[in-house]
């Protein structure tokens, strides 16, 4: 008997009892759905983490005033104890080769001609920001030292602001209005992309001194410190904590690298993984037992058929293969239903959280279909073995 014949015979047997077969596959359906969603969500999460790492860069760390974690990256101005002296102290006392760059963030309305964008992040920065943050201009120039010395009203646009205002892509030399004051555009930053829900490119840079005057504060939002290599980051962070403790108590500031953010994201996705993983495991187990149960019933119901097939020349491996392939096909069908549901599930998640791109990966599909086949094989083995071992005469006599 060829494989195709086994599949055909199994398919006929399965479809002759549609409701029963569908109910039997339910466990495997849920299990495989969970597997695919599990992988899709965790790859989605790790993609976010990758973006995060790319967005932040691995060879830098941030000093922020203590505040809720989520706000740390956005730099929403709160009462901050962090001052320019802290940055100076850090730069002066460090034994390592680092670039210390203080930043003052404040959201403000930005206007060009008739168009107004509110909530644009206005960052007061020093010339060394480019190197510290590893974020560079693609057009024009970044803020120069004398721009800061003279507290000039010059601005470097993030990509979103640039493309939003200047459809022709020609912004350098134009004038825009920030918080009611006119600024001259001197450059455009390279695109940095999304960080979770935050568009990093919806940001403009002005000299730190200008920002301090404009917003009437000297408190910093954060200090970004560029380190020579990623390996030096832990040492540099320890050093920063030590140096800054001279001016502040440890609970007034935080020193964090992207590694910690990464951990947070990873621990969240780990919880997800554990949850869906146990759902998958339990459903596959229950599904497998269901398949075993229905296969035992099926073997009993078809005892005479088995006897007949044996009388007509079926060998034990033939019967074994027939019932095993039926169990596998049943489980595989559950897997296929699971693929449909997980596709719909991924679609639903993507709809609900547009920034969290969940896509069903081919790897996940192959893996969970593989699982469904494995479950069918494992739990179908015993019923098939029982069928194969039946005595033909007694089987034929079975009522």
């Amino acid at each position, binding site marked *: *008997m060829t494989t195709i*014949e086994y599949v055909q015979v199994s398919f*006929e047997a399965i479809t*002759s009892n549609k409701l029963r077969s569908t109910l039997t596959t339910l466990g495997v359906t849920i299990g495989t759905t969970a597997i695919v969603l599990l992988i899709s969500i965790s790859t989605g999460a790790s993609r976010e983490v990758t973006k995060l790492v790319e967005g932040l860069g691995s060879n830098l760390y941030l000093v922020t005033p203590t505040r809720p974690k989520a706000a740390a990256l956005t730099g929403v101005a709160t009462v901050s104890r962090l001052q320019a002296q802290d940055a100076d102290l850090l730069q002066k006392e460090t034994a390592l080769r680092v670039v210390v760059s203080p930043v003052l963030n404040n959201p403000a309305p930005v206007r060009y001609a008739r168009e107004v964008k509110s909530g644009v992040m206005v960052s007061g920065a020093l010339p060394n920001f480019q190197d510290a943050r590893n974020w560079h201009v693609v057009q024009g120039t970044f803020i120069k030292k004398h721009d800061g010395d003279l507290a000039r009203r010059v601005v470097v646009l993030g990509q979103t602001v640039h493309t939003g205002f200047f459809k022709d892509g020609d912004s350098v030399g134009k004038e825009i209005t920030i918080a009611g004051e006119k600024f001259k555009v001197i450059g455009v930053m390279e695109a940095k992309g999304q960080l979770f829900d935050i568009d990093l490119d919806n940001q403009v840079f002005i000299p730190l001194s200008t920002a301090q005057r404009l917003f009437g504060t000297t408190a910093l939002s954060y200090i970004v410190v560029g380190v020579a290599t990623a390996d030096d980051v832990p040492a540099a962070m320890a050093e920063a904590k030590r140096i800054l403790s001279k001016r502040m108590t440890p609970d007034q500031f935080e020193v964090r690298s992207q590694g910690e953010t990464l951990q947070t994201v990873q621990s969240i996705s780990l919880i997800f993984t554990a949850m869906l993983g146990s759902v998958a495991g339990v459903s596959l187990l229950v599904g497998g037992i269901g398949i075993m149960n229905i296969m035992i019933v099926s073997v009993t119901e078809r005892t*005479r*058929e088995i*006897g*007949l*097939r*044996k*009388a*007509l*020349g*079926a*060998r*034990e*491996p*033939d019967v074994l293969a027939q019932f095993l392939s039926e169990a596998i096909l049943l489980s595989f069908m559950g897997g296929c239903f699971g693929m449909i549901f997980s596709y719909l599930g991924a679609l639903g998640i993507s709809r609900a959280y547009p920034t969290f791109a969940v896509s069903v990966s081919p790897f996940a599909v192959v893996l969970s279909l593989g699982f469904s086949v494995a479950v069918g094989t494992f739990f179908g083995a015993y019923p098939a073995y029982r069928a194969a071992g039946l*005595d*033909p*005469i007694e089987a*034929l006599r079975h009522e």
Partner: protein
Amino acid sequence: MMVRAKDLIKTYRLEGLEVPALRGLSFSVEAGAFIAIMGPSGCGKSTLLNLLGCLDRPTSGTLEIEGVDTSKMNRTDLAILRSRQIGFVFQTFHLLTRATALSNVMLPFVYSDFPKAQRRDRAMKLLRYVGLQDRMRHRPNQMSGGQQQRVAIARSLANDPQLLLADEPTGNLDSRSGLEIMALLERLNREGKTIIMVTHSRELAEHADRIVHLLDGVVLRDEVVAERRSATAQLGEQLA
């Protein structure tokens, strides 16, 4: 010699109790013979037929089918032998209820090396042979008992075996349908098949050329039928 059985003993074990079904039975069947096996209920007719059909192995003794000793064969070899050399006809037909007549006849091909491309043609030819050219797409529950038994006979011929074993093939049929089945068996016998049939009816047994009488698991008497009945002729008379 188609079948040569020597000192066949078959003992069933039932809850520690030994139930002797055959107690040293010997007999042989020439190729092309039509044998009827008779005897009271429980004398071992079905047991003997199951051994001849290689569905079971004797407890002791030898059984040769077409010159090959089957008493020591393993189960796989017995299965192969069944598929190639033996055709079964059962009292209760044993057709697959969900399958059409055609599919039922094609079932044995699945377990033999019969060329795929020729299976359907061969099955259709066999159904025509048993007179069911109009019933190929019918399922067993859409056919009379006699028609079902004819499908079963067509199925038994699928792999062109030389030996046909029939355990009370007409036991579940009315006399006319039974006679039609007998006519079919007679015709197959004329065309060269060796047939061994178990029956309780003296009348039906007289269609064979030999009657083997069993009693308590041994051959009581081996009788050559002096005046063979012909089902074909009887059916002709009934029509006239």
